[in-house]
């Protein structure tokens, strides 16, 4: 005669074993998935940062040709109209124009160098005797790219006056 109690007990043990194995399986695959996604997310962040950086490099090279920056009086592809850029500083409509990933846009005069004007932000009181125009500055981490340009404007004495400068573009970093 079969011992049904013993059989039932063995069956319960088997079910428990199987349940433990299944739980172990699920935990194992969950851990593998977490590991996979953490690596994937890391590489995704890196790729997003690389793409943003590439975009910034492409944008900073072409910023001097945009309608808001370009010096169109003469044929000069890397000349920036300093008066126009200074006027742009006060235009609130342009605040969101450059995109969410751009954290910083600055135009800096670098030559001829003047000690008195070093890092002097331009305002209506000191323009053009200053060397920095900040168009956008968000309080966030960024990596920056630069492009050398000629900063041109009309001077009362000498006519068209171009000085060496650079455009600094900061892209939000993660």
């Amino acid at each position, binding site marked *: 005669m079969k011992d049904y109690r013993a059989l039932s007990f063995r069956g319960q043990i088997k079910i428990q074993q199987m349940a433990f194995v299944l739980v172990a399986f699920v935990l194992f695959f969950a851990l593998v998935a977490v590991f996979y996604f953490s690596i994937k997310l890391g590489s995704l962040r890196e790729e997003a940062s690389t793409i943003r950086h590439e975009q910034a490099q*492409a944008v900073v090279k072409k910023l001097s040709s945009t309608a808001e920056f370009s010096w169109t009086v003469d044929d000069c592809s890397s000349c920036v109209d300093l008066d126009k850029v200074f006027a742009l500083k006060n235009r609130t409509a342009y605040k969101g*124009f450059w995109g969410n990933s751009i954290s910083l846009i600055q135009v800096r005069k670098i030559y001829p160098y003047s000690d008195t004007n070093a890092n002097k932000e331009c305002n209506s009181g000191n323009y053009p005797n200053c060397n920095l125009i900040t168009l956008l500055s968000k309080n966030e981490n960024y990596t920056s790219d630069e492009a050398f340009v000629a900063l041109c404007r009309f001077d009362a004495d000498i006519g068209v006056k171009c000085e060496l400068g650079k455009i600094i573009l900061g892209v939000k970093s993660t």
Partner: protein
Amino acid sequence: MNEKKGMEFSFTWLFVLLVGSAILFIAIFAATRILDLGTEEYQTKLAAELGTILSPLETSLESGKYYTIKMPDETRLFNNCEEAGPFGKQEISLSVKSGLGKEWQRSGVPYSSSNKYVFSDEIVQGKNLDVFVKPFNFPYKIGDLIIIYNKKYCFVSPPEDVEDEILSFGLRNVNISKNKNNCPIDSTSVCFKSTGCDINVFIDDDKSGSIKKNKKTLYYYDSLLYAGIFSEPELYECQLTRLRKRASQLALLYAEKTQFSSERCGSGFADELELFANRLGNENIRFTDVAFEAEEIGEKNERLSCPLF
């Protein structure tokens, strides 16, 4: 005692079947989701890279640029334009043909920009995308018209300057013919001096006119002619609104610029520029309606001792 013969279907089996199928279902579901996510990620990356490529394509001193962008696989480009905001928004998303599951997956996250103007059909499909870039001046430079196409076109008796431009840039898939009957059958015909084509261009003067396309009339000025021919009418109108808004903002910018340069160069024409900006700010105005004012401003600027643009 009689023992009944048959398959024993114990609780263990039932448990294994239920849990096994649940695990299999979850595994298949997760695999499909991961695959979909991977595709979406790839498409998003591709759209962002396309956006990066479009920046160097913009013009500086050139009268135009032409490139062919080779995509890694057969791709659908979705062009979306939004008018809202001070400059509106350009969105481009991509969907790459898949060998697994659905042929065309849901497109990735769109690349978005406020200073790009892409003119095309709503969906452009192909492995090679033709990109023709033309600057748009009114009378100062407003932006670049980025025209993306990959259909075949046949221009019937175009004006000399249009013909010269197409030949000098070597636009792929654009034929020039003296007669509509000589056009390739699978091409979209564009008539300039006659009617009866898929697209009919009516030239008013050397810069402006209208284009009849899909039973709709599109008004063009200068290089907008190409944008009108290659673009979906709704997209064309939306991009024109965005260009008009930027033209208005630029007029205000030049008006402000006169304040800084007036001490050095005498008075400019800030009032006229502000008036021009207001006119351009009107929703119902077309570029052709203010073309005369634009040309007048352009002429006045040339006469200034320190031109504004």
